[in-house]
């Protein structure tokens, strides 16, 4: 019996699946004013590069808040110590989830750059929400702006809008901020 190889099927199937998924990014959204990396760094109390150790979500009143513990590899601004716990709105607790538009999300083992802001009582938040968290992969630092809507405005000369860039450039821009 003639048996045709299954290779064409194996090629075409992922294509069809890709077409289904390419148009389905997860999304959250809020409206921010156009912001530069430098401006985000200025309002941050600390900027760190590190790795997410763990995350945990809980109810705080009617809000779900997720805390991410980060092991600090280097601090580009401030001195937050070897570990920092940042709280961000949104997350999942049991059979309920809360999506807060424009809030960043964290995953365990994720390498990140975080622009942290003191939230009082020894707590930390993320400055600029999604604008203040970058995922680092293969030398690139990339914020998740899928849920961000920008109200555009001119930025200061020489400053770069929040967006994907080499992690070295991100560090240089942060460290140059006074």
């Amino acid at each position, binding site marked *: 019996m003639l048996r045709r190889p299954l290779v064409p099927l194996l090629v075409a199937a992922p294509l*069809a699946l*890709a077409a289904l998924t390419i148009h389905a990014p997860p999304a959250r959204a809020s409206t921010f*004013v156009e912001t530069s990396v430098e401006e985000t760094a200025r309002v941050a109390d600390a900027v760190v590069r590190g790795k997410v150790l763990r995350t945990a979500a809980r109810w705080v009143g009617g809000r779900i808040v997720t805390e991410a513990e980060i092991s600090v590899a280097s601090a580009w601004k401030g001195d937050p110590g070897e570990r920092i716990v940042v709280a961000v709105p949104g997350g999942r607790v049991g059979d309920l*989830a809360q999506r807060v*538009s424009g809030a960043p999300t964290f995953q365990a083992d994720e390498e990140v750059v975080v622009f942290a802001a003191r939230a*009082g009582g020894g707590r930390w938040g993320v400055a*600029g929400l999604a604008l203040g968290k970058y995922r680092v992969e293969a030398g690139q630092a990339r914020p998740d*702006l899928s849920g961000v*809507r920008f109200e555009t405005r001119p930025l200061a000369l020489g400053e770069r809008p929040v967006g994907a860039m080499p992690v070295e450039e991100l560090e240089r821009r942060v460290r140059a901020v006074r």
Partner: protein
Amino acid sequence: MSRRTKALAAATVLLAAAPALAYVRSTDDGTGACFYWGPRQVPYVINAPGAAEDGALQASCGAGAAVAAVRAGFEEWSAQTCTDLALVETVAGSASTQVGYLRSGANENLVVFRRGWCRDAAPDGSGDPCLTASGAGACDTVHNCFDDRLLSRSTIALTTVTYSPSSGQIFDADMELNAWDGASGTFATTNPSDGWYFSCLAPLARTLCGIYGQDDCNAMDLQNTVTHEAGHFIGLAHPCEVGQAGNDCTSADAPTTMYPRANLGEYSKRDLDADDRQAVCDVYPAGAATLRCTSSSDGDGSGCGCGTATPTGALATLLGLAALAPRLRRLRRRQDTTTPA
């Protein structure tokens, strides 16, 4: 691979990679379930007590104009004849300031005008009881300020959606508008010391405001902002992401209300674009079932792909499946013919 299969597969790749004028639905990151409201009548309430009169908004938002702008932003979605989704203001005015979801007790879908920052209303070390409270006692609820400790001063408007991650069904949605505290302000800063300045002028060509407190000029157009946020309220996401390879925005996306950029003073997004209309028509079709998405755990999804109801995306999918069909038929015939009796 036959020539026909190759051609179809190539077309699939090209179409899937091409910039698409395409609405996108919000989905749960874990399950992929698309957000949707169960009931077709979704109530909301507005808390805007004297917002303009108190100086938190431009004078153009006075005498009920702010509330009218919010209503218009919601009505723009439910006014489409192809849908029976009804976003209904059930109570004329609300005094509630509490955002979020109460697991026991009544909830309301709130649109609230925050005024100024919570760090200013209840400074660190002030001893204000709200600093250690949550829920009804939290600072944003007590002082109706924007929680700039948890959130961000660069935020102009923000929508919080509580939903089932398995099905995607929305249970509650609240919209916070981060309004001015009436003190001072300029558009030149990312994190203004006094909130954001909204205007409610009719869509006429006017100059842009330079500083807060100016009248007869366009600032952050309230209705423009609310119409966009109301899209998120009903479960829609942005059609693209600026600067994101593979999903970058194009000029074709720009006219949509759900486009992720807006210019200061813009009001064109008060009116839905064809893509926005298609979204609400597809997800909440008049007299027909809500378009749901398959999720990993609820098992009763309709099998649709979130955000695939787009001319380009759907065509790419169909072409991909068309390319597969002969293979699948052949595979099935082979299985049929080789199954032992």
